[in-house]
């Protein structure tokens, strides 16, 4: 009998500890408790550059559900992250180009996320295309997101972009005045991997650069450049 009590005591102690470590989210009309935890340690902490929501000592984690209920138990890592993307403008005009002299314009993306960084990807729907619907301005070549290249004024021809400002830009993009340029890909491709928490709006400046050959048909050309921001897993 003594052994039985000990067993029960151990079970209660163990299960009691387990119950105390489960995370939960509750809400009513007036109140909401987001992913509360009963754990060994945890909480929110921050410094100038970093934010941390921590939880430890949770022996049982995961998600459970039934027809009427959903149960998320475990570390705060299960919290979903939000993300927003804003462009400073949806229309960019590059100053008129005279062959041999490049022109530039810029866009700025602003991303806010509470995740541990984000990926900024770009693509274009087509080459810059004349209003005649046929004539195009090709992208620079060589010059890819993987391997951007220096711009040689008067020699480099085509449409391209570089990243001139941002947080933690890859050195492959160069620096002023020696930025390195890439063609916009047809498929969305990550151009900037922003690491770490920001807890604030994070901006990236994209510079478009264009020069054309002496035989490029005069007139107006257009295309669409699409950006996408994805939370880092």
């Amino acid at each position, binding site marked *: 009998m003594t052994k039985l009590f000990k067993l029960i005591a151990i079970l209660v102690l163990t299960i009691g500890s387990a119950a105390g470590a489960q995370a939960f989210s509750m809400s009513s009309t007036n109140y909401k408790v987001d992913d509360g935890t009963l754990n060994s340690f945890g909480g929110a902490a921050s410094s100038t550059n970093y934010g941390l929501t921590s939880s430890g000592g949770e022996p049982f984690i995961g*998600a459970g559900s039934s027809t009427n209920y959903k149960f998320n138990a475990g570390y705060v890592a299960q919290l979903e992250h939000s993300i927003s993307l804003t462009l400073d403008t949806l229309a960019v005009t*590059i100053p008129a*180009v005279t062959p041999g002299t490049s022109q530039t314009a810029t866009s700025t993306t602003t991303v806010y996320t509470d995740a541990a960084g984000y990926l900024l990807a770009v693509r274009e729907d087509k080459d810059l295309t004349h209003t005649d619907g046929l004539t195009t301005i090709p992208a620079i070549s060589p010059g890819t997101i993987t391997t951007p290249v220096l711009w040689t004024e008067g020699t480099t021809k085509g449409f391209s972009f570089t990243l001139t400002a941002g947080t933690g830009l890859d050195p492959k993009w160069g620096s002023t005045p020696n930025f390195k340029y890439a063609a916009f890909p047809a498929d969305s491709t990550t151009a900037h991997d922003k690491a770490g928490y920001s807890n604030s709006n994070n901006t990236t400046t994209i510079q478009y650069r264009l020069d054309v050959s002496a035989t490029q048909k005069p007139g107006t050309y257009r295309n669409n450049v699409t950006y996408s921001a994805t939370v880092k897993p």
Partner: protein
Amino acid sequence: MGNPFHKPASRLHRPATLALALLFVFGSMFQTANAAFSPKKMTLSNQNRSNAANNPGTGVQYTLSATGASATAVKRFEFQWQAAQGTDACPTGHVTSSAAFGTTTGLGGLTWTVDNAGSATCLVKFTNVTGNAANGAFTFRIDGITNTTANGTDFVKVTTYDATTAGTQLDQDTVAYVIADSTVQVTATVNETLTFSLATTSVALGVLSTGSVSTGTGNMSVATNAASGYEVNAAGSTLTKGSDTIAFVADGTVTAGSPEYGLAVSTCGGGATCTSGDLGMPQSALISRANTSAGDTHTITYKASINSASAAGAYTSNISYVAVGKF
């Protein structure tokens, strides 16, 4: 009286029942606790609203990149779009009724059958009777989605099961993505260009004689992005010394012993067309080209001859060229 220790049998029975009940309760909890995907991300081929003015988000591909935890073969994926995490309802204007299987990686190359019966709540299911474990890195692409009409953060709850219907839930997680006006229309203008230059503005024919034709040359260069090319016109005065002149050639050839003066395009550059023969002035479309030119170089040869009656002295002539772009 209320002391359970007065009844040994009961003391033994009640704690044992309690322990079993506790084990059952928490054991059940452990069974329903499903693992999350980690890492995970949802990549959209187009993050614009479906009602965006430019590049609207229709026919969008959603690609889940994740790593599952369960080694059991997944036979059903359920994708539940949510405007708010935890609420199984479509983001405003979001349409999944045309969802289709795209492609996968890391899932054995299987083809998954779509079930859009739950499109009213933006629930899309994909099933495969064979299934494949999703406990490594994998991707699952869904095609044909129409994005919401409102910018902001939306969610997809992803759940895997071990059966094509019902069955046991394996992994479940929710991943966020953003809908935003994310397309920039880039406009660029290319200016019309026409460049023209003479290599020299002074050509000496030397001392003219009755026994030969004296010549001198000069080059000109023309470039244009005019779609219809260019033409070069020429005009000027004949060789003149005071009131004395050497007339322009009239028969197409400057002949030794005849007092004639003219010019010829001796090298017709690039793809241009040039008037042939020895020519007097003026000349319309001396040189012409029907398309763009990155730079054509033409050589002009000036020719003169005299007869014994020609007055001695220094003769001069000014020939002017005009290049015209045909835009």
